[in-house]
């Protein structure tokens, strides 16, 4: 209710607003509001942005934020990216959206899915192109002409994050706009040193994930509810084809995928990102995601994650699978303490108590300061 009231208040302010763009919006004239209606929309977005700044969901680590902003700036050029402010929101679904006032929102699930800088740049550049081409303003005017936009902005249900994503889906762009944003972003990428083939690769991967997800029971519905990216971005075969064709003409030797720099930047965040995904309890989607990240080369981290996924489901045979994954993870990286924990629990659950206790003790030796040290000590000695 509080949120609804707040939105209504903002709506009233919007109706009476005649002032220029607020301090939070970009001062650059080419990105600023052009008439009174747009100023109203700007103000509404600024209000959301103020709220977002205080959200418990914001990942405001300076290094992470400056890295992501840096990728956008490299992709579109330092001159143009200055008009945007990026907010990374901890939500384990795939989404990125951009408001007309220059606020770009990136969900943490995106960072888990992109595999290199060029893929991340593709998505950020795509959203930036919608912004620069003023697509959301055009869509807003369309919506406004059909219905009372004030009412529309005021009645969006849920918390403000839900409102933001719902807004994203209401403002879904038409096919021409999507194509324009795709090709503008691809041009930018190629010109600024990223390999443009990344564009078709990331959309292809997301499309495959969507397919694997909709195969899962009730999964599609869950993703729709989450206001996920696919509900507003048609991801057709045709799109892959025109992106691939366009990329071929623009590839050159100086371009990079930025795989290693991406991996380094994400390394501190990866355990949290994968943990958030695993705890969604979406077995099929997560299994697909892990496999697509591995691309046949299962690293210790990915094997550990897969062990966690199987152990959490705990169906018949899952503990045996999990034990295999943890053992492979440990074989690759003996310092990965959490693998010993998962291994120990899985062994005990599947009847190998002594071996399980031994693994738990190894976990405790490697993590003497673990939060669960007390209970795991007990499990390692008495269970």
């Amino acid at each position, binding site marked *: 209710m509080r949120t609804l009231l707040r939105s209504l208040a903002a709506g009233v302010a919007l109706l009476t607003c005649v002032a220029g763009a607020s301090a939070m919006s970009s001062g650059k004239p080419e990105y600023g509001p052009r008439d009174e209606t747009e100023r109203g929309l700007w103000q509404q977005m600024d209000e959301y942005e103020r709220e977002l700044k*205080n959200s418990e969901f914001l990942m405001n680590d300076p290094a992470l934020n400056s890295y992501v902003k840096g990728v956008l700036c490299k992709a579109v050029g330092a001159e143009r990216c200055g008009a945007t402010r990026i907010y990374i929101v901890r939500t384990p679904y795939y989404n990125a959206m951009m408001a007309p006032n220059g606020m770009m929102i990136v969900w943490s699930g995106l960072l888990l899915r992109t595999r290199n800088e060029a893929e991340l740049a593709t998505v950020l550049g795509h959203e930036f192109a919608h912004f620069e081409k003023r697509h959301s303003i055009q869509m807003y005017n369309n919506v406004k002409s059909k219905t009372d936009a004030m009412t529309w902005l005021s009645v969006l249900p849920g*918390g403000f994050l839900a409102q933001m994503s719902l807004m994203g889906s209401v403002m879904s762009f038409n096919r021409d706009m999507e194509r324009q944003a795709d090709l503008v972003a691809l041009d930018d990428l190629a010109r600024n040193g990223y390999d443009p083939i990344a564009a078709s690769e990331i959309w292809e991967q997301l499309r495959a994930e969507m397919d694997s997800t909709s195969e899962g029971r009730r999964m599609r519905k869950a993703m729709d509810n989450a206001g996920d990216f696919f509900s507003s971005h048609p991801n057709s075969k045709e799109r892959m084809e025109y992106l691939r064709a366009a990329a071929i003409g623009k590839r050159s030797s100086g371009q990079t995928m930025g795989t290693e720099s991406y991996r380094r930047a994400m390394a501190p965040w990866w355990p949290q990102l994968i943990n958030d995904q695993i*705890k*969604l309890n979406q077995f099929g989607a997560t299994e697909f995601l892990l496999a697509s990240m591995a691309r046949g080369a299962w690293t210790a981290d990915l094997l550990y994650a897969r062990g966690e996924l199987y152990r959490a489901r705990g169906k018949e045979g899952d503990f045996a699978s999990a034990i295999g994954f943890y053992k492979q993870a440990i074989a690759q990286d003996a310092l990965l303490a959490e693998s010993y924990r998962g291994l120990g629990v899985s062994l005990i659950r599947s009847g190998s108590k002594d071996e399980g206790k031994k693994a738990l003790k190894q976990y405790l030796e490697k993590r003497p300061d673990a*939060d*669960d040290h*007390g209970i795991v000590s007990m499990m390692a000695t008495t269970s």
Partner: protein
Amino acid sequence: MLASLAAPALADWVVMESGAEVKVAKGTMTVKPGAEWNRSSQRPSRRSEAWTRDGINLNELTFFGAINEGESILRQGYTTNEKLPRFKSDMLPTDITEMFEATNRMVLQSPVFKMGKVEPAKLGKHDGVRFSYNYSAQAEDIERRGEAVAAIVEGKLYIVNFVAPSLHYFDAGIGEVRTMVEGITINPPKAKAVDDGKKKKKRKPSSFDVMIEAAKK
């Protein structure tokens, strides 16, 4: 954990007197509150009940009693997403805390949930696990803290869970809750009582039910 889900306006409240023994969660546990609490008529699940002192958003104490093999902690209806994790009687203490965490993340639709210390503890005279955590729900601007003690007794899961805003209310309330948890008695239901529960769930509508339905139309 239900602060953002329950609709207190629709609940009826019964005062739980300080110092008086009272059976909770359908008689599966007996506690003696050291302060005056209010019991909500709305159950977070079939096997639980919720108490508060100052309003469910400010402090919430939930008793989950005798959760059976294959049942979830909360009602499946709280989430339209995936199936909530189910209890298994061979779960280890860390499995219980992981199930609790996953349930909350799914129901609250929030990844901002962090498990803190997990250590051995007693629920009444039974060996169990105590765990603390904090989280934020999407529709709120505040951080909440929680502490729960869980134990498996005769193959069934019992949890007593206290949640309050991290600012002031958690610290103000947890002391009395810990004392109450120490003195709790678990009354495992007899096999027959469980069967009755199942029968009730499956029962066909009586002629009385049909009459009421007709009257509504």
